[in-house]
């Protein structure tokens, strides 16, 4: 799966040749992450975030497996076992803070990754399946993060679990049965905590599996790039190694520096203090909020306050929150503009930033008490979110006058430095389509 000018793996040692005809693992790595993977030469730092998300998952899995050696999934001692990790387990405080801060960072990185895809049109053909797999990963991440948060068994854990599992009871007729089935009881209790621990341990490995599919789907057409123009020939690409391995390692260094600052100096800055109070089923905290990365969806859930069209407000809220994510699965077919990158879409670019602002505003509303003016603002911001994808994007795709695209990636790069490509180089290469793996 690469362009026809990709370099081929040549084993240099006898052992290399021996392995190559038995288990060609080095060949796979060479072709996927090495000099055998030609990559558009104009990728900017926003293209680091895919690799960063992968590293964030690995950090979560490693710290999580280690924490699982000390944590006890029983309502009587779960909260205390977390404090025991913090105080008594050797380096436990660091591992737990890495895991908690790591979850926030994982989402932060993935949100940048998603918005980068939105800006450069990476969801458009031929990368729709890549986009869909990414959304599946995002859904799995939300489920995993939610269940992990419950394991602490603090007040926010308990009441977050109560609120989120109650979403299922909004389903007509079978809702209550599903709710009871999920909890293994009538309210979150020991059965709930145990199964959440089991699933929280399982899901990251499923995420890992979907990531393999995600990377596979990426390597068939190859990376999109900031111009959104297809690769036309060898002059448009550089080998992944050493060019992007170096760039990714630099980005990783910056990421790990910021991560370390949070782990060591601001470990609770992104969390809710109420979760340091042990769970109490008889007392709801005055203000239940999810972690920051779920706040925009929480705002959409809260936006429906009255029954309407014979559907109860509660079901509307649940449907809206679910559709807010499911909508993204249809994006490749809602945005029919043939131009990928917003660099050449002046009108869509404006609305891209409006969407970013709208999502931040939803996040702010999600964190506020259910009081005016935040309820009204949250309703308007939710309405915009849906209008953006269902009305604005299809209309822009039809009527927007896009800017002229460069003939090739190479030409756009050279134009930046006031040069023109040598005559006949752009698009001169015969095969522009990626070839399947050998």
């Amino acid at each position, binding site marked *: 799966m690469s362009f026809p000018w990709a370099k081929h793996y040549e084993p240099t040692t006898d052992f290399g040749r021996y392995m190559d005809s038995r288990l060609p693992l080095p060949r796979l790595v060479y072709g996927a992450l090495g000099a055998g993977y030609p990559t558009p030469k104009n990728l900017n730092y926003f293209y680091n975030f895919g690799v960063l998300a992968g590293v964030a998952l690995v950090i979560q899995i490693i710290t999580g497996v280690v924490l699982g050696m000390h944590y006890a999934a029983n309502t009587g001692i779960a909260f205390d076992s977390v404090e025991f990790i913090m105080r008594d387990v050797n380096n436990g405080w660091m591992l737990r803070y890495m895991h908690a801060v790591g979850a926030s960072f994982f989402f932060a990185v993935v949100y940048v990754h998603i918005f980068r895809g939105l800006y450069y049109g990476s969801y458009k053909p031929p990368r729709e399946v890549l986009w869909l797999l990414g959304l599946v990963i995002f859904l799995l991440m939300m489920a995993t993060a939610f269940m992990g948060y419950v394991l602490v068994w603090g007040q926010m854990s308990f009441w977050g679990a109560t*609120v989120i599992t109650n979403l299922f009871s909004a389903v007509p007729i079978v809702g209550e049965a599903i709710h009871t089935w999920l909890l293994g009881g009538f309210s979150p209790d020991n059965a709930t905590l145990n199964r959440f621990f089991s699933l929280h341990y399982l899901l990251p490995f499923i995420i890992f599996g979907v990531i393999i599919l995600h990377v596979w789907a990426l390597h068939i057409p190859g990376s999109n790039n900031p111009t959104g123009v297809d690769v036309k020939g060898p002059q448009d690409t550089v080998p992944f190694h050493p060019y992007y391995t170096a760039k990714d390692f630099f980005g990783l260094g910056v990421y790990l520096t910021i991560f370390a600052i949070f782990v060591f100096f601001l470990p609770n800055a992104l969390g809710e203090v109420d979760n340091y109070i042990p769970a109490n089923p008889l007392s709801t905290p005055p203000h239940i909020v999810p972690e920051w990365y779920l706040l925009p969806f929480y705002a959409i859930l809260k936006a429906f306050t009255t029954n309407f069209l014979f559907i109860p407000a509660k079901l509307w809220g649940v449907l809206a929150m679910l559709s807010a994510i499911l909508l993204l699965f249809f994006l490749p077919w809602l945005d029919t503009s043939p131009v990928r990158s917003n660099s050449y879409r002046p009108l869509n670019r404006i609305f891209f930033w409006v969407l970013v602002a709208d999502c931040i505003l939803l996040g702010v509303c999600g964190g506020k*008490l259910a009081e005016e003016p935040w309820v009204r603002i949250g309703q308007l911001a939710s309405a915009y979110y849906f209008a953006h994808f269902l009305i604005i994007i299809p209309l822009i795709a039809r009527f927007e006058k896009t800017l002229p695209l460069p003939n090739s990636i190479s030409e756009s790069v050279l134009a930046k430095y006031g040069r023109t490509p040598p005559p006949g180089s752009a698009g001169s290469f015969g095969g522009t389509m990626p070839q399947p793996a050998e």
Partner: protein
Amino acid sequence: MASETQLPHGDDLTIDGERRRDFIYVATGAFAAVGAAAVVWPLINQMNPSADVLALASIDLDLAAIQPGQAIVVPWRGKPVFARQLTPAEIAAANKVDAKTLRDPETLAQRTKPGNEKWLITLGVCTHLGCVPLGAREGEKRGDFGGYFCPCHGSQYDTAGRIRAGPAPKNLEVPQYAFKSPTSVAIG
């Protein structure tokens, strides 16, 4: 490798396009599907409440210490129960509303026991997403309708525990209970 056996080919089809082998394929698939379903069901059903959770718990509640206007919170099946002695003003406020105009139409009389209208016993579980509403303890916010106020998403209940504003669809649930004496009830 000469063999007398004739394997069925595409041209062995009967007039209506079916082969004997098709039946075997379908029967095998159906048998496997039934077998898979039989194995999957226990895997799904294990997540339903276990026997100890289902074992019904009932509690006796002494109301003697609750003064008019006061409420207590007691746990029952892992959920809070609010037991409140309504003041005459609260009863009047609840009866003044035309029940037909409400989201979940019920009168105070329907939500209490005959002769004991002043005792309002409900689950302390918001019918929206299951939070515990405020208002049962002294000094807590009770909302615009003087009953209970859910802090999670702003649902407001009136003095009869009926939903009046906010996203909750139903009135606060009234559990099964019976008076054993004028000042004690058995819940469950």
